[in-house]
């Protein structure tokens, strides 16, 4: 086994060890933590963020960033809620959510690839536009009350397992396959490692860059389906600040913000770590205001630890 393999394993292990350590401490502090019920609860709570984070992983691996995922979730949510109110068709609602996510993601992608905008600017603009449009469309009032056939996406169970967990897992398995097994996945890493050299290897960098933002938009649409079904309401403020949680999950999971390095499994663990901290702090009755402080500290610590291992 050579050096690169070892350091890769060590790096992915780093966040796993963090997660296990955290869980051990919490199960010691409160018996309520390590129960099947609570674990499923944590998984369900992180499902929306982790779906967003999966899309964000693609973007960050190319060296970009998508600040608009939370707002896209918001706009997709109210649009699909509107469609549901008018037609009553859950299938159509899902399609509308994905369609709007796709359109916004595609726009982000084209702005970055063809428009040569820095991803930060393009998606910052989209973040404001999407949020604004969701308020315009709803006039600030949530759209509530959906048929059970739609609500399953957020509240249903498949056997003992909540549907949102299943959806998130499918997304992650699929994303893992794409990133590790396919040509597209290689190009994503390649773009983040050196875009010029990638283009000069005869690869349509603009095309694949656009796709990456499209993927992020589509997943924001999917996250909107789960979120809207779960809270039984299309709220124009839904997903506010989620972009930061998604980015945090990716970063805690060991993906480099400059691109080219990182794994989707890392992102999943990153999302879990955040979920476990929130859940654990709730269980041991820590003031929710302090939770933000802890999450912030964890982000800084994770990146510090990551840089240390890289210097080895």
């Amino acid at each position, binding site marked *: 086994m*050579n*050096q*690169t*393999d070892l350091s890769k394993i060590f790096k992915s292990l780093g966040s796993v060890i963090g997660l296990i350590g955290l869980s051990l401490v919490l199960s010691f502090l409160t018996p309520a933590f390590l129960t099947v019920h609570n674990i499923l609860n944590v998984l369900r709570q992180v499902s929306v963020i982790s779906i967003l984070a999966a899309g964000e992983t693609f973007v960050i691996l190319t060296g970009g960033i998508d600040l608009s995922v939370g707002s896209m979730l918001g706009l997709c949510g109210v649009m699909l809620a509107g469609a549901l109110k008018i037609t009553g068709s859950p299938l159509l609602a899902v399609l509308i959510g994905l369609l709007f996510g796709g359109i916004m993601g595609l726009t982000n992608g084209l702005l970055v690839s063809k428009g040569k905008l820095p991803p930060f600017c393009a998606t910052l603009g989209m973040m404001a536009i999407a949020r604004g449009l969701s308020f315009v469309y709803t006039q600030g009032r949530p759209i509530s009350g959906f048929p059970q056939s739609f609500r399953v996406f957020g509240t249903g169970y498949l056997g003992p397992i909540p549907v949102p967990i299943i959806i998130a897992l499918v997304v992650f398995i699929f994303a893992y396959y794409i990133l590790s*097994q*396919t*040509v*597209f996945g*290689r*190009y994503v*890493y*390649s773009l983040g*490692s*050196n875009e*010029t*050299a*990638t*283009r*000069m*290897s*005869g*690869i*349509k960098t*603009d095309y694949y860059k656009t796709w990456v933002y499209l993927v992020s938009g589509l997943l924001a649409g999917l996250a909107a389906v789960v979120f809207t079904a779960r809270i039984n309401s299309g709220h124009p403020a839904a997903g506010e600040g989620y972009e930061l949680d998604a980015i945090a999950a990716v970063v805690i999971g060991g993906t480099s913000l400059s691109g*080219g*390095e990182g794994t989707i499994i890392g992102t999943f663990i990153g999302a879990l770590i955040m979920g476990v901290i929130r859940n654990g702090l709730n269980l041991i009755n820590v003031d929710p205001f302090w939770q933000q402080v802890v999450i912030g500290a964890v982000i800084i610590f994770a990146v510090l630890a990551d840089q240390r291992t890289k210097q080895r």
Partner: protein
Amino acid sequence: MSNGPLLEMKQICKRFPGVQALRNVSITVCGGEIHALVGENGAGKSTLMKVLSGVYPPDSGEIYLNNQRVNISNLQEAQKLGISIIFQEFNLIPHLSVGENVFFGRFPQGFCGKVNWNRLFSEAEQILASLGISLDPHSLVKNLSVADQQMVEIAKALSLKSQVLIMDEPTSALTQKEIDILFALMKKLKSQGVAIIFISHRLEEVKEIADRITVLRDGEKISTAEAKDLTREEIANLMVGREMKTMFPKQEAKIGRIILEVKNLFRNGKLDNVSFYLRKGEILGIYGLVGAGRTELARAIFGEDPIDKGDILIEERPITFYSPYDAVHAGIGMVPEDRSQQGLLLTQSVEFNISLPSLMNYANFGKINKKLASEEALKQVKALNIKTPSLNQKVMYLSGGNQQKVVLAKWLELEPRILILDEPTRGIDVGAKAEIYSLISNLAQKGFGVIMISSELPEILGMSDRILVMNKGQITAQFNREEAEPQKIIMAAAGRINNESN
């Protein structure tokens, strides 16, 4: 050179993952000496200098300066001790002026930290004048030529009162005239008692300027000798550790039909009515000085730069390239001038790099056949004799010559019809150079059309079937192999249009 040893490095060892970069290397440098450090890529020259300048801590060994043992753990400490290094890639800030760069981090300050600009620029002017450099301290570094930027680096180093000046391949991007100016400056510094450690791949330069020469090979010191006691061939033999075979193993290749034709190519300010053709099995050398438009021509043909006017025909079919993607699909591969920025993904593995352009060929509905990709990459690693501990090694840990072979391998794997090589041996040691030459020669024999851009005349003369010379975006002359003479080529590169051979 009558002064005693100014600097001594004793028994320096340094290990990187997978390689022992330095093994018990000791060198001694005197004040007022130009000491050349030569060796193949990966021989440890740059590593040794990075140890000396505090970039890398040594695993073991001692450094003495003026007979005092010193510990150098970063560049600032080295500078305080009077050791300055000028890297191959300059450490200048492009958007600041010459004066600001010279005094960067040490601006003369007045009341409340206000920068005393008058003093800064007048002192910078003094330093430049004392070195005989005619540069305006107010001009921005980004507007300077590479040679002038180098002068700024030297001025910066000397403003730090350096006793030891390390220059890592200072001449690789300079023209002959600029090299002459640099050497004059080096001699001046030497007369002032500065010790200069000079790393170069160009043995004739080493012979010309150095007092003593230390040869490194595979991380070990092979010998140190007076420059006048060694011939170029002897140095080369010491470097590679074996008798050098013929440097240019050009073999006769069957030259066939025209595969690439360029007609009246224009690009504003860069290319001016360029027309030429390339035949199957031919090595077409393009010579010119830096800035003559050779790289611009290559990039235009490869679709990386837009063209204003003109036609490109491949196998007699006119084709428009909007991006390198189109060029690659038309059968063109390119080994760019700037290996690390344009040719390689440094943080990815050897296998990743080699397979990148041809991934689609190993894929079934987008899924990569990883086993096939590895096998193919391994084949290339063996065929090109790429020295790497494994296919998973990150390319950044390979030596320059092996990195260049990886770039070549990625194109060979795709089997293009036309290969454009832009300065294929820049910054590569003698041994790897010879290997790359024989590779190029083999490619021509196999029926590739090869365009080889180079600033090295021996390489152009030794390898090309036909030579084009460029100046200011134009082709100023064309020579067949038999009629090519250095004198004529240099004249054409300097801008004399030579119509008789056209």
